[in-house]
């Protein structure tokens, strides 16, 4: 009975992530390493954030609901900032690793481009944060009960799954934009990424008014996606070219795309 809900929600939340992992990451050991290490970095940031929140709750008056809610908001903001800080740390680490890889490579070119790293690390952040936000909901979705006896929305499970899906996408896009901005030292863009992450986090506080949180969140996801697409080198022209089935040649130089498997070198 409850298994249908469980699998439905799992596919919604992690279907895209699973497809991306299997088709673009799993084939390349280097990308797998970056994925796992990225997840680890995210976990460490979560550990720190939860420590800060836990200590602040311990030190505060636990019967003051208003204060506790404020602390939760504070904790969420701290967590967002920490996640972005760790994303930056991870970028630095990957840069160092990249230099090492260049010295090893035969033709003096790195075996993986910064854009690819950005995409994989973003996906890693997305998967692990998605897992952590939805795993206990999935555990309870198996049943036999469903949400609602206290008057909550019966669509709790499916909206949570969609939220998670958006979160996985958002992290992937943020990763791409963030690394690119770091690379080009565009601090304004960095600020925009952090702000949009903060906004996302803030939107979830609008739950259980799911219309109020889900719709803006998906709009945000779409726009961030478009931005990331452009950052990664996509354009309307390339979409057009892609749809018309022609290989694009001419004045632009081909690079390893974020999604392409590396060549034989």
């Amino acid at each position: 009975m409850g298994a249908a809900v469980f699998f439905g929600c799992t596919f919604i939340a992690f279907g895209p992530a699973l497809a991306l992992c299997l088709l673009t990451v799993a084939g390349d050991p280097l990308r797998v390493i970056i994925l796992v290490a990225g997840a680890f970095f995210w976990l460490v940031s979560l550990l720190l954030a939860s420590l800060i929140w836990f200590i602040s709750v311990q030190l505060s008056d636990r019967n003051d609901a208003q204060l506790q809610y404020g602390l939760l908001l504070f904790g969420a903001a701290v967590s967002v900032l920490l996640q972005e800080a760790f994303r930056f740390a991870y970028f630095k680490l990957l840069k160092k690793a990249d230099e090492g890889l260049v010295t090893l490579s035969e033709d003096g070119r790195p075996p993986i481009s910064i854009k690819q790293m950005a995409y994989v690390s973003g996906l890693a952040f997305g998967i692990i944060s998605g897992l952590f936000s939805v795993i206990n909901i999935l555990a309870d979705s198996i049943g036999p009960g469903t949400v609602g006896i206290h008057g909550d929305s019966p669509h709790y499970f499916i909206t949570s799954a969609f939220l998670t899906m958006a979160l996985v996408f958002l992290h992937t896009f943020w990763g791409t934009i963030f690394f690119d901005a770091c690379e080009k030292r565009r601090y304004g863009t960095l600020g925009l990424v952090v702000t949009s992450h903060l906004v996302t986090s803030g939107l979830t506080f609008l739950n259980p008014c799911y219309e109020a949180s889900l719709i803006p969140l998906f709009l945000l996801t779409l726009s961030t996606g478009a931005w990331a697409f452009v950052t990664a080198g996509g354009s309307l022209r390339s979409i057009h070219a892609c749809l018309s089935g022609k290989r694009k040649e001419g004045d632009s130089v081909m690079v390893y795309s974020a999604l392409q498997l590396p060549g034989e070198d």
Partner: protein
Amino acid sequence: MAAIEEEEMGSSCSWRIRGVTELLLRGLLLCALAAGSGWCNSVERKIYIPLNRTATCVRLMNATHQIGCQSSMNGDTGVIHVVEKQEDVQWVLSDGPHPPYIVLLDGELFTRGMMDQLKESPRISGVAVAIAKPRPVKGFSPGSRCPNDGFGVYNSTYGPQYAHCNNMEWNPLGNGLFYEDFSFPIFLLQDENETEVIKQCYQTYNFPHNGSVPQYPLCAMQLFSHMHAVTSTVTCMRRTSLQSTFSINPEVICDPLSDYNVWSTLKPINVSTNLNSTEKVIMVATRIDSHSMFWNVAPGAESAVASFVTHLAAAEAIHKAPDIQTLPKNIMFTFFQGESFDYIGSSRMAYDMQKNKFPIRLENIDCFLELGQIALTNSSVLWMHTDPVSQKSLSVEVTNLFSRCSTSGTGVEVQEIGSTQALPPSSFQRFLKLKEIPGVVLADHKTSFQNNYVTETAESLAEVATVVARALYQLAGGSGNASAIQADPRTVTRMLYGFLVRTNNSWFQSIIKPDLKGILENEPPPYYIAVSKPVNATYLVHYVLANLTGAVTNLTKEQCLNSDGDLYEYAWVQGPQDPNSTTSSRLPFCVRSTVRLTSASSPAFELQDWGSTQYSTWTESRWKELHARIFLVASRQLEIITLVVGIVILIISFVATYFINAKADVLFTTPRDSGAVAY
């Protein structure tokens, strides 16, 4: 997925620890997790309302049968339907479109007929019974019509005309529900507020307005009472013993019902040796326990309480007589545990006496007096039941004496039963089985049990106690003025309050050991025998008896704790509150008494004869959890929609990713100027 498996497959102990840490971690992580949003309370709390004040029908077994109830391993779930009238059950049995159902039964409808109907239906996955308040007027007994049949004295060789209640059906109201084996769980809802919550949920979601079919989501209930043992005591004890032989980590699957009998003597006797055969003892006995369908709840215990309170009051009264130490015969006050389950306590004591494992032997017993059901109704007449087969003549002396006592200035009349009627189910039968002992069973019923709940007054019980005490005094050869012996109605009142209303009262607090103060609660103790270790009721009877019959000594705490001897037992009790102290300090003291505990576990387990027909073989199954919760169930449609959406998204993801990945070189191009990235 891992988390789910972990929760479901973990074993009991490690599960709890892991569960706690997992919960902590989850709460911690979730709350701190920015993107994970602000659900600070667990998801489970959003879905389920646990029912905290429930009692469960569990599985018991004897040599041949299993009785009671159980759920499946993961609990039984069903849509709630409230049955308040007989007609309501039709919906559950045939009309309702959403089987299986869990029936919320009003207490008054918890009858044999109703349960038989539900039992036969495959559309029932469980029953929750709302406790009946006020109690049903007609009386209710889940016991059998012929209690403890086959374990009394009458059988094919001894008074065959009386065997199997041929002569008299003692408990006509007994519907035998207790001895039924149900394949679904049955829970008793003890808290009216919780019952109200369930009914409200039912009214909101499940109530068929004008016969229309209620729409999803529906209110459902899940009952967990999975039992480890199955079939019979023989099977489960064999499995348990097999495991303990071969397994490093044996898991017991059932335990024998056992506890302790409480006994004391008027004159101290040396418990380390056997009594000289010339010494005679008059044995007075009552039962402590009672049974009901639900584990650790025995609401029909009034009759047992009235009897043993009378017994305690009589013991106190006789101890106040001046010349008791010079009486020719001793008196033994005995309180048996587990009598409801084929005479566990009395059969063990009789067995021990026969095997010389008890300081008093069978030949020391001069006569036997048992207080049966004593709940005086309007007529204050007590009936003396005797055994028609043996020694009617032997008991004449006793009965005559009683008749004399009762006429002398008490409001209670004691009458003999003229006919040749069998003994009612009584502990006395177990002694009669081994040796012909003169004796009577005193009860308020002439024929069958008066099986309605009676509000007995303390005065009437004190009068009965007075009659008993005077008769005992004279039976023991007392030559003094028997009419000076008088039971105290105030003691009876205090005891009734403690045993029937709340054990946490100042008197009980002052008479028990400090380390037992945790057993006192704001409700009466359960009168179910349970498995091993003295249950609260046994402890309480022990310390009340010690207080009423013992003596206060001026020993210090150390002396008191170290001075248990062959003649007396010493107990260091809490004492009353210090009136001169503002803090809650107490004035503890040392009580010396002859009150002792002795094992009340069936000889069948001593002999490892698990299929015994002579001795009680009742065992209680082990279980992992007993709990109930309510929640909503979603419609199948919504579930399928979720699944379909999930699968569609999965497929789209794969197709899109494959497509984009294949065309990535076209899609993602970099303008020349920014092309020379880091390398």
